[in-house]
């Protein structure tokens, strides 16, 4: 009987802690909403982007031979997508709806965007507009 009572109290405490943790994580996720960061930009020097340890899922889109690959990517809301230019020519990553726009990315430069809202996000290279792609964000 006593043990059951104690375990109930312990259960409640664990539940409380779990609740607090979940709420904190949600608050943290909220402050990171729609952050766009990029490295290299127009400076031409190649260095890795680093926004600290990733706080959620990540996805990479490679740019090479005038192609975004994968061309269509499906991710969960909260995913940070990193585009990395492996071509020997600069390219850009521009949302067709004006939601994000990178600087010119030289070889090894990266552009990052975190997708919070579900939806479809077509993008292209404004220098070479035949290069197109799409991020599909699921809830």
């Amino acid at each position, binding site marked *: 009987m006593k043990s059951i009572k104690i375990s109930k109290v312990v259960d409640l405490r664990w539940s409380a802690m779990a609740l607090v943790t979940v709420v904190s994580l949600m608050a943290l996720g909220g402050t990171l909403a729609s952050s766009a960061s990029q490295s290299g930009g127009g400076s031409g020097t190649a260095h890795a982007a680093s926004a600290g340890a990733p706080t959620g899922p990540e996805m990479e889109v490679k740019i090479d031979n005038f192609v975004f690959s994968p061309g269509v990517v499906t991710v969960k809301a909260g995913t940070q997508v990193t585009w990395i230019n492996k071509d*020997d020519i600069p390219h850009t990553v521009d949302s067709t709806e004006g939601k994000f726009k990178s600087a*010119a990315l030289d070889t090894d430069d990266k552009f990052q965007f975190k997708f919070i809202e579900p939806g479809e996000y077509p993008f292209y290279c404004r220098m070479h*507009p035949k290069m197109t792609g799409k991020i599909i964000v699921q809830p």
Partner: protein
Amino acid sequence: MADKKRDFIDQKLQDLNNDGVDRRGFLKCMAWAGTGLVWTMSGGIPVSHAFDKSSGKSAVKGAGFSFVQISDSHIGFNKPANPDVTATLQTAINRINALPHIPDFLIHTGDLSQLSKPSEFDTLDQALKGAAAKQIYFVPGEHDMLTDNGEQYLQRYGKGTKGAGWYSFDQKGVHFVGLVNVVNLKAGGLGSLGHEQLEWLEDDLKGRSASTPIVLFAHIPLWTIYPDWGWGTDDSEQALSYVKKFGSVTVLNGHIHQVMQKIEGKLSFHTAMSTAFPQPAPGTAPSAGPMKVPADQLQKVLGITDVNYLVSGKSLAIVDSPLDGSTSSASEKSSG
């Protein structure tokens, strides 16, 4: 030798009338580019003359003025296809300065820089100071408009231009129009002139006598060469409709880093070699990117374009010259 060249020319004329570009057609074009053939347009009919290099003079007489087109210098590019684009630009400038006649001006058909950086534009300007021709006209390429809506380019080269840098000028009765087709491009599309520029162009050409020779120059080709690689301009047809009435229209473009030519009645189209690196023929590589060639071949596939205006025939003679100065002997080898 002259007969062989004439047969080659006649065959070339037939090939040029086809809209599709196949590999063989391209190779012939490439060989042709190195020959130093002088094409003149007289009343819409192209005629060729040998460019007499030994005498150092063009066999074409009665030249009214001349200019040189250079293109795609891509200052700032430093990958294996050409680790030193400033050096090859300098070679191009030396070739210009070694011409038998000092050109009245130069036209740069865009992609001056690789990344629109001030240092890149500075390097270009510094090199061009050594050109014998002091007047230089520019139009931007997509590499030149990468920052702040092309602020860097327009600050330096945009004086007296409208919108994203379009303008016109006259030289001895020939009307030149610099067009910009590299901004506000739509996803999935080609080059674009845009409504505002087209309206301006229509107005600019209105009221000019049909006997005025016209030269249009823009970065991306104003005719559809290879849509998969973006080699064309979505609304060029409208622009070309405005020049239909004129007796002689020449279109000079860059962007594709190789010579291609097409003649359609009174309209002749020409693209120039780059001074930085070559690109592959349409469909012959996974993409349109820089094409590596053996180091000793590089100067054969980069070049300048010398254009002579002949007052007598009111026509333009266009000669493409590779940086290594090669002429007909090289072309016979490569056309085999």
